[in-house]
């Protein structure tokens, strides 16, 4: 089959392994396209996409916008800072108004968990979740798994440690779903206060010591401490966090094997990763960014073409 089982990309939870593999195979082709002298294809020329961002974003929004433009879609951008949401309009009204202007797809980021799921029940357009609160960030997980597949040949059987603020991270949850579906072993690692209580029920290992996690894994996906989502203190100080959980180039070099270092960005240099680690040969952080465009092109292409 060359069709996704879903009309929307709300989360990795709803995807099948076949869906993920189809997205990867399509993304392989788009990765070749974005390295051509002329990087644009006309597939989505009669499709209009609204990027609706109720939460700040640089990388994801730019990546989606670039993916849409490389596919020749018409793009409108909307962010809450300069919109009528500030005047008290509801989410459904805002989106319905945008759709009345004949928009076919909506890419949405929202601070509330389940916002895209709510929209999917009420509107006809295809919806792509670009992050909903602390819940899921499916395209990030897809591009992370795609980057692992590219670097190591496959995801199946690989050991991946997700390190950092697991509690507040939508990237972590989507990554766990994606990696487990693709047959990887997954471990989460962080201070006990930043690990959700029943996370092991998702079939992941839990480790509190970063050194042990690094010794175990083939790939370390390091996450940012999401201070903006933390209403209370989960650890004494950033300095202490970086002392116990920060990864340096020396930690990586001292391991008995070569591991791959990933980070979804934005990096807080000197907190979860030191500069020399982030820029070392272990790191595929910038490959992740490049793959992000190709993977998002694949998602948009497959969703738009399945009417």
């Amino acid at each position, binding site marked *: 089959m060359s069709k996704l089982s879903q009309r929307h990309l709300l989360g990795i939870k709803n995807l099948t392994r076949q869906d993920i593999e189809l997205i990867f195979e399509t993304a392989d082709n788009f990765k*070749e396209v974005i390295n051509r002298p002329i990087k644009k294809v006309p597939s989505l020329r009669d499709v209009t996409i609204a990027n609706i961002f109720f939460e700040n974003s640089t990388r994801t929004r730019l990546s989606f916008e670039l993916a849409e433009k490389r596919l020749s879609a018409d793009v409108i951008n909307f962010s809450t800072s300069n919109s009528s949401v500030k005047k008290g309009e509801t989410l459904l009204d805002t989106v319905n108004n945008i759709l009345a202007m004949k928009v076919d797809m909506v890419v949405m980021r929202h601070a509330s968990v389940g916002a895209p799921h709510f929209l999917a029940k009420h509107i006809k357009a295809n919806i792509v979740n670009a992050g909903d609160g602390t819940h899921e960030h499916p395209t990030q997980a897809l591009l992370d798994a795609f980057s692992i597949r590219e670097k190591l040949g496959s995801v199946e059987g690989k050991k991946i440690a997700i390190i950092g603020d697991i509690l507040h991270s939508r990237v972590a949850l989507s990554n766990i779903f994606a990696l487990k579906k693709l047959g990887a072993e997954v471990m989460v690692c962080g201070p006990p206060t930043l690990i959700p209580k029943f996370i092991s029920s998702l079939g992941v290992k839990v480790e509190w010591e970063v050194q042990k996690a690094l010794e175990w894994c083939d790939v370390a996906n390091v996450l940012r401490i999401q201070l903006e989502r933390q209403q209370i203190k989960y650890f004494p100080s950033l300095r202490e966090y970086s002392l116990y959980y920060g990864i340096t180039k020396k930690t990586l070099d001292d391991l008995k094997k070569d591991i791959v270092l990933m980070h979804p960005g934005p990096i807080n240099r000197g907190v979860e990763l030191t500069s020399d680690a982030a820029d070392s040969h272990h790191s595929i952080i910038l490959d992740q960014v490049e793959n992000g465009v190709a993977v998002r092109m694949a998602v948009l292409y497959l969703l738009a*073409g399945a009417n």
Partner: protein
Amino acid sequence: MQKKIVLDSQLLDITLNRLCQQLIEAHHDFSETVILGLQPRGIFLAELIHAKLKTLVKKQIPLGYLDATFHRDDFRRRDVPAKASETRIPFAIENKNVVLIDDVLFTGRTVRAALDAMIAFGRPAKVELLVLVDRTSTRDLPISADYVGKYVDTLESQKILVELVAQGHKQNKIWLINKD
């Protein structure tokens, strides 16, 4: 379902040899010529012709694969999005003579898409089209081939089936199939 042979293994070989000779006649030493096989099925034919030319002109001619899926005009008009294949053109086509190769020329829409896809890699000096089977009177667009293995007059409801050893078949054979 009725099947009728259009070209058998022996005739196909004669036809391929003739096509190669025609290419040599037009392209001499192939110094400015590159070959592009159209995905997904044209690449097998392109490889066959490429191998034959190599023994005839004693020279390695650049061979690439071109996929036109993202340039098709039926996106969002089919139930399932068309599945893309690999494009691999590890050489420049700027100012080259390009020979596009596909197995069957039917409506001409794939060739139209392929021309668009190819232009993304540069501006060739000249583009020609080689097909094994030209299905006459089923064209939707004003497109014709420069080198043709065999002209077959078909109905739109009929199908041409190309079986090549390279695709895993026992023998090279081209069939005309009546759907009923």
